[in-house]
């Protein structure tokens, strides 16, 4: 074997470069050449179409632009109006907040099916007469705490009770919905007089946009920062990408898992506040099937369901695509059944396209 000579020379060469914490014997020149040849960047610089493919979320932005064009062509009078854009964003805000939490859970290798039900429970708990008597701030704190609490239970069951995430959160979905029905006696609870501050989140506008859109934006930015700029975010990718490696690197995977689900629950609590603002009610029927919309948005956004890879921006773009489709169907007077079919197709197409780009990038 020719290469067997390499290491001998490498070890005998007297080089000892004193750089950094460790001195290492440098390899001989032919060793170095071999190592580089085994890398795969030998094929010169990629041309511009290839580099364009590296722009993140390009496909999603293009899809969104395409939908906008469809809107401008089919319903030119109503689509590009300020009020329509506001209604798209307001519609997206509630699920959007949930989607941020879901993105964390899914990148962390889990799944949270209970988000819609937990949001409903939080909205009911915050609008009971007892809670309402303490005023709007307590209502908000209550909703957020109920959401985070339910998330903690999910996380504890999964991390320490060793339940599969699908099962634990499915149980929470059913149970939270039931508890919400019990607390509200299946009645819709109105936000009382004196607590209108909650509703003002929806009615008060700043620079033309209702406050709840700013809440949404704030959650997205905070989510992005946590995911990309903090140790928590970094650990989330590690725990989802290779839990064994994370564990052996000294990361407490179970504790991190608990926090991930608590974060998702917290987002549900915030979403509950937004839905109370929009509908002026708390109800056990709020948020039905939100879990599916949130998960679909995350998947369309390019997050792997197996964990370890994904982004907040992608999820939000995925969600906006969904919302704009809904909007276009309503504006064009098409029925909701066709809308569901279209959404189903989009999920499949998005995943197929992503798989192709994944393969070409490896």
């Amino acid at each position, binding site marked *: 074997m020719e290469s067997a000579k390499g*290491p001998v020379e490498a070890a005998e060469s007297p080089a000892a*470069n004193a750089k950094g914490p460790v*001195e290492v*014997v*440098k390899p001989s020149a032919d060793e170095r050449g071999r190592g580089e040849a*085994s890398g795969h*960047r030998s094929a010169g610089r990629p041309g511009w179409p290839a580099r364009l493919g590296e722009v993140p979320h390009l496909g999603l932005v293009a899809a969104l632009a395409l939908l906008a064009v469809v809107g401008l062509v089919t319903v030119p009078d109503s689509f590009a109006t300020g009020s329509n854009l506001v209604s798209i964003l307001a519609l997206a805000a509630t699920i959007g907040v949930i989607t941020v939490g879901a993105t964390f859970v899914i990148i962390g290798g889990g799944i949270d099916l209970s988000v819609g039900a937990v949001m409903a429970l939080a909205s009911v708990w915050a609008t009971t007469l007892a809670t309402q008597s303490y005023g709007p701030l307590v209502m908000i704190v209550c909703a957020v705490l109920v959401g985070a609490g339910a998330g903690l239970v999910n996380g504890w069951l999964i991390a320490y009770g060793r339940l599969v995430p699908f099962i634990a959160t499915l149980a929470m979905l059913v149970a939270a919905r039931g508890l919400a029905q019990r607390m509200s006696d299946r009645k819709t609870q109105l936000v009382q007089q004196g607590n209108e501050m909650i509703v003002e989140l929806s009615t008060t506008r700043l620079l033309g946009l209702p406050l709840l859109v700013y809440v949404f934006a704030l959650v997205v930015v905070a989510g992005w920062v946590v995911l990309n700029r*903090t*140790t928590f975010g970094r650990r989330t990718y590690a725990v989802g990408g*290779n839990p064994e490696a994370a564990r052996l690197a000294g990361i407490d995977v179970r504790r991190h898992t608990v926090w991930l689900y608590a974060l998702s629950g917290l987002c549900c609590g915030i979403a509950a506040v937004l839905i109370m603002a929009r509908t002026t009610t708390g109800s056990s029927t709020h948020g039905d099937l939100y879990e599916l919309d949130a998960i679909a948005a995350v998947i369309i956004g390019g997050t792997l369901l197996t964990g370890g890879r994904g982004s907040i921006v992608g999820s939000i773009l995925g969600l906006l695509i969904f919302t704009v489709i809904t909007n276009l169907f309503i504006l064009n007077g098409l029925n909701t059944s066709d809308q569901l079919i279209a959404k189903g197709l989009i999920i499949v197409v998005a995943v197929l396209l992503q798989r192709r780009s994944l393969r070409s990038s490896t």
Partner: protein
Amino acid sequence: MSENSPLLLMKGIVKQFPGVRALDGVDLEVLPGEVHCLLGQNGAGKSTLIKTLAGAHQPDEGTITLGGEPVRLSSPIAAIRLGISTIYQELDLVEGLSVAENVFLGHEPARLGFVGQGEANRATRALLARLGHGEIRPTTQVGRLSPAARQVVSMARALSHDTRLIIMDEPSAALAHDEVDNLFRIIRELTAQGVAVVYISHRLEEIRQIGDRVTVLKDGRTVAVGLPAKDTPTRQIVSLMTGRNVEHVFPPRRDGPATGEEVLRVEGLTVPGVFADVSFAVRAGEIVGLAGLVGSGRSEIIEAVYGARRFSGRVVVEGRPVRRGGTTGAVRLGMGLAPEERKAQALLLDQSVTRNISLASLGRYSRFGWLDRRREAEDARALVETLDIRPPDPDRPVKTLSGGNQQKAVLARWLLNGRKLLLLDEPTRGVDVGARAELYAVIRELAEKGVGVLLVSSEVPEVLGLADRVLVIREGTIIHQADAGDLDEHRVLDMIMEGSAL
């Protein structure tokens, strides 16, 4: 086909993986009805050769002839159709299915798409009876069977095809002694019927007992063909397996015994059924090697020390005990582990070299959870440079690196946060010879900086060349301890293979 024309003939097989030439011109000749043993150290290319035969890998060069006809084994199905069955080391049975369902998995007797379960059960019963295990019921779930019984099921599966050649990869590894006898009885019956067996085992005694002829692999090449299994001297086999002159690639040891503080003390460490009453110590600046076969308990010892396995006994790092079953504590005490399965246990393959390096030290770069990414990138870049990780691009996904460079990234992870004790499990597995010398140098440098190193390797020359002190392990017990300089490869191999200490 005459009685003595070979059933299988492989010539000049070459298989190249990124960074490693796993097979570099292998020849193999198997006669009908013989038990042909394949010997070689870890990394010699046995597994790759088997996978080539099983149709799981396609060779880059070379020819394969079966029963006189040249064949292409383009897929596992193609190999099975030609009459080559493989029983892998990790049995590949579906635990949730019944014995019969496993035996006929993929070729169920079916009419119009309906599985003829009755027929499958009958045929399975007949196969099991032929193997001398009529007591295993075809309807039992495989998950409820003992390892030995599963082995029999695997064999029944191999026989359920029209098989001319069965490959067995360490079939005795999971078996107790009397079960091995039964395995041998089955093998003898098969060969009496003209079926040829390619038998892979590390245990020389078994090869003497069951084998007809031996082929020895070393560094991806055939170094001996058709040695008589019964009476080739052990010394000759061992020197064929090891003949390589590797001493030169190892960095020189420090003179004299290690005098540093004791960083690790292990007392009466036991994991029931795996290893028992293991005691040793590692000093700062010392490299201690564990030599033993796969399954001897060496990797499990490392895992237990790291707190990744429940154990009884005491593990003390600088006077502080390690809690059982929690790796976070081990890292906090100053331990680092480079695990055996680099890809599955150490790396975030999709992520950059930088992120893989900083994974265990995120706390250092954060203030209130906020990451200082510039400092992180600077430190990672410096480590990529000092360890000469190639290509020298810290932003590249770690999965695009060769095995040796991936291992350097794992070492860099622990270099970054100043370990007192490093546990290295097969640090050069899948690393080509060239990159090994560099890894050895890095490990020695670490020791010279005062880190204690506990090293596991199934390659005896590596343990002897790199370690200061060597513990020889056989079947979960330390059978010998000595300075590496006082041991030689033959003696150690004799001890771990035959069990004849001294």
